[in-house]
C-alpha cells in the first residue's frame, strides 16, 4: 500500500527525527492539529468529518433495527467498516476492502468495543427479536498518514453526536448512550526513534507501528502492533505512556 520513497527522503526524515524534530516542526511526541466537524451528514444518525493534520476522514453512523446475535439476545450491535477510497491516495485502488482497510476497521472497532463505549444493553427493543444496530462507516478522503487514529477519532466524534431514531417506533429519539471514551494513539518506530502520530513520510519509512487505545481512567483497552519490525518491552511501555499523555487533549476535543 505504500508509495515509493527515495533514499534521499528516507535519510532526511530519519535525520530529522534523530534530531528530535519533524518536517512539520512538531516534537516527537506531538499530535498534529485536530479539527472536528460533527453532524456533517444529515442522512446519518451521527457523523463527523475530522482532519488530523492533512489526513481527512469522514465517518457516518447509521442506526437501524435488526436482529441481535444469539449469544447476546438483549444487546444492541456495533459494526464497524472502513473504506480507503481511491481518491484518498494514488495507491488506493477500487475493489473490495484490502487487508489494510480491514485492519483499520477491526482495530478501531476493538478500541470502541472493548471499552464498552456504547451501553449496548440500552439498545435493546425486544429481547431476542429486535435491537438497534450501529453501523460505523469510516470513509478515508485524504491520506497523509496515521489512518488508525484519524479513523478512530472520526468514529468517536460521530458516535458522540449520534441519535437513536426511536421515533421510528413511535418513541422519542435519544442520544446514543456513551459511557466511556477510548482514545487511540499510534506510534511509529523509525530505526530506534519513536514518533507519535506519524505523517505519511514517517509512515513510509517506519519499521514498526504500535496503536494503543486508553480510556478516561488511564487503562488500556486495545493494542495493535503492525509492520515487520519489532518493539522492546521498554519501548512498548514508553509508547503507552506517550499515548496516555497525548490522548487527554484529543479526548477533550472529541467530547466537546
Amino acid at each position, binding site marked *: 500500500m505504500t508509495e515509493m520513497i527515495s533514499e534521499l527522503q528516507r535519510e532526511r526524515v530519519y535525520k530529522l527525527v534523530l534530531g528530535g524534530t519533524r518536517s512539520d516542526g512538531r516534537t516527537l511526541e506531538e499530535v498534529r492539529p485536530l479539527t472536528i466537524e460533527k453532524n*456533517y*451528514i*444529515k*442522512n*446519518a444518525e451521527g*457523523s463527523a468529518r475530522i482532519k488530523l493534520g*492533512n489526513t*481527512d476522514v*469522514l465517518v*457516518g*453512523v*447509521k442506526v*437501524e433495527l435488526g436482529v441481535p446475535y444469539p449469544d447476546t439476545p438483549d444487546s444492541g450491535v456495533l459494526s464497524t*467498516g472502513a*473504506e480507503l*477510497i*481511491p*481518491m*484518498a*491516495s*494514488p495507491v488506493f485502488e*477500487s475493489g*473490495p*476492502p484490502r487487508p489494510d482497510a480491514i485492519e483499520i476497521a477491526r482495530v478501531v472497532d476493538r478500541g470502541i468495543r472493548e471499552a464498552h463505549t456504547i451501553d449496548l444493553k440500552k439498545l435493546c427493543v425486544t429481547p431476542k427479536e429486535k435491537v438497534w444496530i450501529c*453501523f460505523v*462507516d469510516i*470513509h478515508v*478522503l*485524504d*491520506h*497523509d498518514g496515521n489512518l488508525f487514529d484519524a479513523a478512530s477519532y472520526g468514529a468517536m466524534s460521530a458516535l458522540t453526536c449520534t441519535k437513536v431514531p426511536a421515533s*421510528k417506533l413511535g418513541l422519542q429519539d435519544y442520544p446514543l448512550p456513551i459511557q466511556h471514551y477510548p482514545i487511540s494513539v499510534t506510534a511509529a518506530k523509525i530505526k530506534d526513534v519513536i514518533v507519535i502520530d506519524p505523517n505519511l513520510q514517517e509512515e513510509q519509512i517506519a519499521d514498526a507501528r504500535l496503536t494503543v487505545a486508553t480510556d478516561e481512567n488511564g487503562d488500556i483497552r486495545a493494542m495493535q502492533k503492525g509492520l515487520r519490525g519489532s518493539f522492546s518491552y521498554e519501548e512498548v511501555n514508553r509508547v503507552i505512556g506517550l499515548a496516555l499523555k497525548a490522548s487527554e487533549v484529543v479526548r477533550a476535543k472529541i467530547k466537546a
Partner: protein
Amino acid sequence: MRIMEDVEHIEKEMKLIDENGLRLDGRKPEDLRPIKMEVGVLRRADGSAYVEWGGNKVLAAVYGPREAHPRHMQDPTKSLVQCRYNMAPFSVTERKRPGPDRRSVEISKVISEAFDSVIFTEQFPRASVDIFIEILQADAGTRCAGLTAASLALADAGIPMRDLVASCAVGKIGDVICLDLRKEEDNYGDADMPVAMVPRTGEILLLQMDGHLTLMEFDKAFTLVKDAIGRIYEMQKEALRTRYAVTAEEFSDQTENQPYENREVGQ
C-alpha cells in the same frame, strides 16, 4: 433517478405542488436548489472539487493522466477515461452496503463516456484519467452533482478539455415540468431526466430518462434544463476563477516560450 427508499416518512397524501404552484421547499417549477462549489479541496489528488447541491454533498477527485494499469488495458493512441461513482454507506436514509451496486456501475459508465468526449485523450497515449465521484450525502440528482463536480476536478487537475461539462436534471410532477427534483419529488413524481451538455456547443453528452413524457413535455423539459445547465456552467467558471484568482503583475515574466534560463546548477 430513483433511490430505493423506505417509505415510512412520506405521508401518502403529501402534495408535491401546492395550490400556489410552489413545491415542497417553496421553489417554483423552474428554480434550482441552492448550489455551492469549491475547487481544490483535497491534497493528494491531482484535482478535486466539492459541491453542495440542495441536500447533496458530493466530492470529486481526479488522478491523472497516469500510466494505465494493467498494461493490457493501455491504448497506444490515447488515454483511457475511467470514472468511479460511489455512494457512501451513510449517504442515504437506509444504509447502503459498501461497494459498487449495479446502479453505481451504470452511472460510472455513462459519466466516463461523457468525459471521454471532451477530454483531449490523444495527448496522453497509454495513460488513464481516473475520475472518482463520492456521494457523501444524497438527495436526488447525485449523478448531475457528481458530474458537475468532476468537471471542476478535471480542470483543477490541468486535464485539457474542449469545455467544461455541466449537468442538471429535470422531471415532471403531476402535469408540471419541474427542474432539479429533490428526493421526495423524484420518488413520487412522474418523470426524471438527468442531462449533461457541453455548454458551448450544445452537445448532449449524457441523457437518461425514466417515467412518462409526451413529445411536447420532453421539449419543454429540455428547454428548461438547457437553460439551467447554462446557469450551472457560469457557477463552475466562477468557482474556478475564485480558486485561481490572479493578478497581472504576478505572472509578468512568464510566457510559454521563455527558456529555462534560471538553472541553478552547481552552486
